[in-house]
């Protein structure tokens, strides 16, 4: 299985090439430089492997949530690459990518992920490590104020990760009744984890056409109609 993953949903910008379990990747913290960096990263990992796009089996991208503009940069890019090379696309949650990072790095069994969504809210989701070692969503992905994040009472001993934890650690820890054992408030999504999640999803038949590769913003109230009515 050969798969290329890209992500630019947060301050991080990354590309990763999965080659039957081996990963070649690039990662940079570069707010506002994603349009500049993303395609050169793609080119670099392909060149390092000596591969061309059409030799791959699929593409993957961080479909959000995250910065609206950042999510669209990766989305538009993956649409173009996939359409040009005739490849299927696997959309991957950026929250799941953060959870997978904690599973791989910390051996986490349960991960509570929060990305700072600004405006006093977090993008929030909880994950369990499944039998395949892959982050599996428990409940729903939501955008809510940190005091309102939905909980899963039957699960304990959360690993916690994401910039939402960096900003709202106290509120979230209290909300989880101090069940957060290990907090990584700086962890960002990385294409390495997106690739791993995408390979697993692809093997179970998850893939869309380039036109169907679309962002998941979670926050969909972005404006008010004239007169203040929503």
């Amino acid at each position: 299985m050969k798969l290329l993953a890209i992500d630019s949903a947060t301050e991080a910008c990354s590309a990763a090439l999965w080659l039957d379990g081996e990963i070649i990747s690039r990662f940079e913290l570069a707010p506002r430089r994603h349009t500049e960096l993303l395609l050169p990263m793609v080119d670099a990992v392909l060149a390092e492997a000596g591969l061309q796009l059409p030799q791959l089996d699929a593409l993957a991208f961080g479909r959000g949530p995250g910065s609206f503009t950042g999510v669209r940069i990766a989305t538009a890019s993956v649409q173009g690459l996939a359409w040009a090379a005739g490849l299927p696309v696997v959309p991957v949650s950026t929250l799941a990518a953060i959870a997978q990072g904690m599973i791989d790095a910390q051996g986490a069994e349960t991960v509570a992920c929060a990305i700072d969504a600004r405006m006093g809210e977090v993008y929030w989701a909880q994950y369990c490590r499944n039998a395949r070692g892959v982050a599996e969503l428990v409940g729903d992905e939501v955008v809510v104020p940190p005091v309102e994040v939905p909980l899963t009472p039957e699960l304990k001993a959360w690993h916690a990760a994401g910039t939402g934890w960096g900003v709202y650690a106290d509120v979230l820890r209290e909300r989880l009744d101090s069940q957060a054992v290990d907090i990584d408030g700086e962890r960002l999504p990385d294409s390495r984890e997106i690739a791993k999640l995408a390979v697993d999803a692809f093997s179970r038949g998850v893939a869309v056409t380039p036109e169907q590769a679309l962002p998941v913003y979670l926050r969909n109230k972005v404006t008010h109609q004239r007169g203040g009515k929503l």
Partner: protein
Amino acid sequence: MKVLGIETSCDETGVAVYDDQLGLLGHELYSQVALHAVYGGVVPELASRDHVRKAAPLIDSLLQRIEVAPEGLDAIAYTAGPGLVGALMVGAMLGRSLAYGLGIPAVEVHHMEGHLLAPMLEDQRPTFPFLALLVSGGHTMLVRVEAVGDYQVLGESLDDAVGEAFDKTAKMLGLPYPGGPELAKLALTGDPSRYSFPRPMVDRPGLDFSFSGLKTFALNTLAKSAATSQDKADIARAFEEAVVDTLFIKARRALQETGLGSLVVAGGVGANQRLRDKLDTLDAAVFYPRPAFCTDNGAMIAYAGMQRLLAGNAMGLAVAVHPRWSLEGLGR
């Protein structure tokens, strides 16, 4: 050679394929006007969200309709500015990644250069050099066009763009968004002799414009009237006459000062019939793109992109968009 053009700088998603031997092979446009109408103006975030949903399917359906395979394309051109930054990024990343995936060059296009060159898509086309009057919701400019890439801005609006003034005045008169064409329709039933509006800046030398005062004049006139439907029609007529006259006077002055013999009218306001009738009385050959190419479209980007490609302006893989971008610095 075939160039695919992609336009996403504001609230229209436009795509087209231009062939340097065969001309325009086809174009598609998805307008977001209905989406933004309820807000009374373009909401940038909603525009970007719509572009990322619509652009790729639009390209796919265009190429199928004109029976051009992706491998049959020789380059991709995309609008890199000026415009809404988030909207521009969608078209730029889509266009650049398409070109990379196909192994062909990508060229960035200046949106206003697209408008300036749009008349080149018609059978009746001007020859260089010519004067261009760009009149849209975002721009009001008189430009000396020496050659592709060689532009001198002779005058521009110091405040509202002419299309913006049309839309704002229309809104004041209670007309639905986008109000420009609605105002022109209402003006048809207006009495031209009832109100006399000023012609801003025509008694001063130079080729700059100012339209915000006209909008205020319309507001004050409306406030003093009984605001009946006939009053509104009369105000619409007087406003339109004042705008058209002002544009006419400045265009005539620019033709005299430059000694140029042809005028190109581009941009959405170029579709206004009263403006066309008036400009046709100028002592110059006047060229208009068809109405569909006056407003934002992919065809003008494909055409300008072809010229850029022929001039050797291919881009690297690092994509940048230019929300503010001077027309004069472009170069040939």
